[in-house]
């Protein structure tokens, strides 16, 4: 059919060409559809001419007539594409090729970036960025994206924040599977190895309904690097060494592809770091030992395909020794002392307090393409997440037993049908069924923070995209989700009455255990989400996106059931059985210009969240162990107003600068109180020197300025047993602003045949600045990490 179009266009082209001036030029790039990497050596043929892209994927075609042409764009490993362009209207065009034939998707020739949604704010990090963060975490790498920050516990537990929101409001799609890894806890980082991803896209907001309806913050989509459909064996090894933490990481992957569509892939990573260092002292017990392996095999044909994927992830993470505190007096002491109470010699050993998390993920997927209709995909996935948290408990024997021992098992079936045969519209309809079971091991000898529960989820969605004309795409979607959570939870009778549950929920009690009630809360939620938006390209270099998204999120187990002392945080956390779902209305706009010499993007948004669930310090509770801060979940109407902006300028062939700024202001709408844990504004400026002739040299210097967060909820008065009086606990006061300088140099050495060796050096925090970050939960106890030299070797073979 395409050939037919080609012939017609060709004939028409020839017919009209005689009457035109043939002095037009078409320029642009050929880019890998999946990871945005420019493709060098791509061939563009039309009539009897052939143009080849340069090392940066650029092409220029001169002496074109003001008519429509049919260009055939091809590259090794890629499917050839035929694109017709009217040269009268268009002078620059980027071609996106499907470099990886795994999914045999249609090639995107819109001239936009590859998208998960058409109208949401989105950004993708490619494999170069992922390689740079090979020894770090997903959250570290994502901070490269404007508007993405992180909630840290030290430097190794990094939770991504998208436009001010984190935790259950951010979905993580790992290789097509929605991660179920107890994302509800502030000190629970995503259980993924960043090296499994070939690219990572962040959708800011709930516009990507196919992944879930509750992404009030956004969706992080990790996609693997894909295997070409040809007889090939390719591999990659990334070796990283770091001075700070005196450790490193090694990650390898190997892909075997066959002409007939079969493929086998395997990947593995090991990371080992000892204690990291702040400029003035060692941050004792901050080592990590991470291991990950994954493997997949399957068949990809044009008409059908299936694959089996399994990944295993295990991470042992030390938690700063000084951050383990007893009661509010210890906390006051830590805040006042400015230096961690425990500083020991450097070691690789990881002692209590520490976390040990394991994540198993298995997936079976099948797809079939129906001629002139679309593609049906069905998938089953299985996940088991095990979390052990060891604390500095009273006795040697107890220290060997974890204080938290949870096992979360999830089974999910998803199926969707995408109708994409018509070039003007795409419709996607899907269903999801999920069963989840949480088991809290009683062997801990500590009351369960999260109870045993069974959870059932079901969802259906319909999304559509319609091309109004060449420049404008509109999209819309709707999704319904049902959640039921059936928990078996023990409440202390005193707590039950203090929360006044005896008034509302006595019918939930199923058994009396002396000082505790066993209860059986069964909670159900019906959630509706919807989105609509448009994507408009104009004057060749401008792109406007507008999106409205409605999203509802049911409260997570932590928000509902937390009750008691959270040992690792030394605070009493209280959930709320009465919690209702959150409803978010988000309007986002993005206007961008991208030309060869310069470009910019400005992206404002407003997110109005009704019944926003927040966790904040409210007071103290006294016990024989002293006073403990109480953190309560509370619902309020909130509003987040923010702006992400960036500019790049190509000053000269070799010199480029990038500038970005992001700010978000969150407050409660009724009484104008600032929301807790909102990221402070930050400005990033970087200058890059690139010269391909010098072994592909790329050198950059980056400046990051983090403002102080001046908007924060008020501190609380607490009773200090030691001082015998009420004192102000500065638990919310943010630390001062800080400035970091980072540098990075990369070169590439061609070895024999297609093999290459890339070398990179990164220096973080060059000036060894002492700083503390408002969004680091250990800011009360110690400075953040100091200078760090990283050396990277990347072999492609």
């Amino acid at each position, binding site marked *: 059919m395409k050939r037919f179009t080609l012939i017609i266009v060709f004939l028409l082209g020839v017919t009209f060409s005689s009457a035109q001036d043939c002095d037009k030029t078409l320029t642009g790039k050929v880019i890998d559809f999946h990871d945005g990497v420019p493709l060098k050596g791509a061939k563009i043929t039309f009539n009897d001419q052939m143009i080849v892209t340069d090392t940066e994927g650029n092409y220029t075609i001169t002496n074109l007539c003001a008519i429509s042409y049919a260009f055939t764009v091809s590259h090794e490993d890629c499917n050839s594409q035929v694109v017709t362009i009217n040269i009268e209207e268009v002078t620059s065009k980027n071609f996106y090729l499907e470099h990886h034939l795994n999914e045999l998707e249609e090639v995107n020739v819109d001239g936009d970036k590859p998208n998960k949604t058409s109208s949401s704010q989105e950004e993708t990090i490619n494999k170069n960025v992922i390689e740079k963060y090979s020894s770090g975490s997903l959250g570290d790498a994502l901070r490269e994206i404007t508007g993405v920050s992180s909630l840290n516990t030290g430097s190794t537990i990094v939770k991504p924040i998208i436009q001010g929101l984190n935790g259950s409001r951010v979905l993580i799609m790992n290789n097509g599977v929605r991660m179920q890894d107890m994302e509800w806890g502030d000190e629970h980082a995503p259980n993924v190895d960043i090296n499994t991803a070939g690219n990572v896209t962040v959708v800011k907001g709930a516009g990507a309904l196919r992944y879930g309806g509750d992404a009030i913050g956004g969706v992080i989509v990790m996609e693997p690097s894909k295997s070409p459909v040809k007889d090939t064996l390719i591999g990659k090894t990334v070796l990283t060494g770091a001075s700070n933490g005196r450790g490193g990481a090694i990650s390898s992957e190997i892909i075997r592809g066959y002409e007939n569509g079969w493929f086998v892939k395997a990947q593995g990573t090991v990371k080992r770091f000892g204690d990291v260092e702040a400029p003035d002292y060692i941050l004792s017990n901050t080592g990590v030992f991470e291991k990950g392996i994954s493997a997949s095999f399957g068949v990809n044909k044009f008409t059908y395909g299936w694959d089996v994927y399994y990944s295993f992830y295990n991470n042992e993470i030390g938690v700063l020794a000084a951050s383990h505190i007893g009661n509010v007096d210890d906390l006051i*002491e830590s805040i006042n002392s400015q230096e961690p109470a425990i500083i020991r010699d450097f070691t690789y050993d990881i002692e209590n307090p520490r976390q040990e998390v394991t994540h198993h993920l298995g997936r079976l997927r099948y797809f079939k393409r129906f001629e002139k209709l679309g593609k049906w995909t069905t998938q089953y996935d299985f996940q088991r997440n095990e979390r052990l948290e060891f604390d500095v408990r009273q006795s040697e024997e107890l220290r060997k037993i974890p204080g938290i021992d949870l096992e979360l098992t999830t089974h999910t079936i998803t199926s969707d049908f995408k109708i994409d045969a018509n070039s003007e519209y795409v419709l996607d309809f899907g269903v999801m069924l999920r069963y989840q079971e949480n088991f809290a091991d009683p062997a801990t000898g500590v009351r369960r923070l999260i109870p045993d529960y069974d959870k059932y989820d079901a969802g259906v969605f319909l999304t559509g995209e319609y091309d109004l004309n060449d420049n404008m795409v509109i999209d819309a979607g709707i999704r319904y989700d049902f959640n039921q959570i059936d928990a078996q939870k023990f409440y202390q009778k005193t707590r039950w009455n203090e929360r006044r549950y005896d008034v509302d929920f006595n019918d939930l009690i199923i058994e009396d255990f002396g000082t505790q009630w066993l209860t059986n809360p069964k909670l159900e939620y019906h959630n509706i989400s919807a989105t609509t938006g448009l994507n408009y390209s104009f004057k060749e270099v401008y792109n406007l996106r507008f999106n409205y998204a409605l999203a509802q999120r049911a409260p997570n187990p932590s928000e509902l059931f937390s009750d008691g002392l959270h040992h690792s945080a030394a605070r009493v956390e209280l959930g709320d059985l009465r919690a209702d779902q959150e409803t978010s209305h988000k309007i986002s706009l993005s206007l961008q210009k991208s030309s060869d010499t310069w470009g910019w993007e400005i992206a404002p948004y407003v997110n109005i969240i009704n019944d926003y669930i927040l966790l904040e310090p409210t007071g103290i509770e006294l016990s024989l162990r002293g006073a403990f801060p109480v953190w309560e979940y509370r619902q309020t109407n909130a509003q987040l107003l923010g702006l992400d902006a960036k500019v790049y300028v190509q000053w000269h062939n070799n010199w480029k600068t990038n500038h970005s700024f992001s700010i978000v202001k969150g407050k409660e709408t009724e009484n104008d109180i600032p929301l807790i844990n909102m990221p402070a504004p930050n400005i990033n400026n970087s200058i890059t020197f690139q010269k391909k002739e010098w072994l592909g040299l790329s050198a950059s210097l980056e400046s990051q300025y983090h403002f102080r967060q001046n908007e924060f909820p008020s501190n609380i008065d607490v009773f200090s047993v030691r001082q015998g009086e009420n004192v102000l606990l500065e638990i919310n006061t943010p630390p001062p602003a800080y400035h970091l300088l980072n540098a990075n140099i990369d070169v590439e050495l061609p070895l024999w045949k297609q093999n290459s060796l890339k070398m990179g050096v990164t220096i973080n925090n060059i000036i060894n600045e002492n700083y503390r970050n408002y969004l680091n939960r250990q800011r009360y106890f110690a400075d953040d990490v100091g200078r760090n030299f990283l050396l990277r070797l990347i072999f492609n073979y």
Partner: protein
Amino acid sequence: MNTCKFLSMLTIASILFFSCSDDDDAPSVINPEELITTMTITLTSGNNTIILKSFDEDGVDGPTAPVVTVSGNLAANTTYSGEIVLQDESVSPADIVNEEIEREADEHQFFFESSGDLNITTSYADTERDYNEGGSVTNPVGIKFELVTTDASTGTFTVTLRHKLKKPNDGTLSDAGGDTDIAQSFPITIE
């Protein structure tokens, strides 16, 4: 062909999926291992006994604040010998927590502080060796201590128990570090 294979896999998967859902075993109750509900300090001078007691019925997890009682006023210019008993009274019979502290005496120590104008001084009356054969003969534990009063005065007397601390230490909490198991103040009058 492949569709069949896949559909059969899917069927197996769905059987798995739905068969897991019937799992209604009631979870077992947890009585926290580290719970200390009661601290009783007996101060004895001859026939005169004063009891300082703090009772926290629901521990750290619970909302109820400890109930603090002092049986009487201390006499001026008197030497009292003190002894501390820790119990978990949430279980029956009550668990004597002292045993655990004695067993790991090298990892535990009590600290005594007074505030206001309270005229008392304290000193340790035990060492780790009293509880364990291999224990240090110089490092105190504080289960037994001596309390000396001088002139009449009022103020608070605070008792702190720490574990995983620095030993030996200079007798102050800031030098000792470690983790707090107990921190309780008592209002005291010397007359």
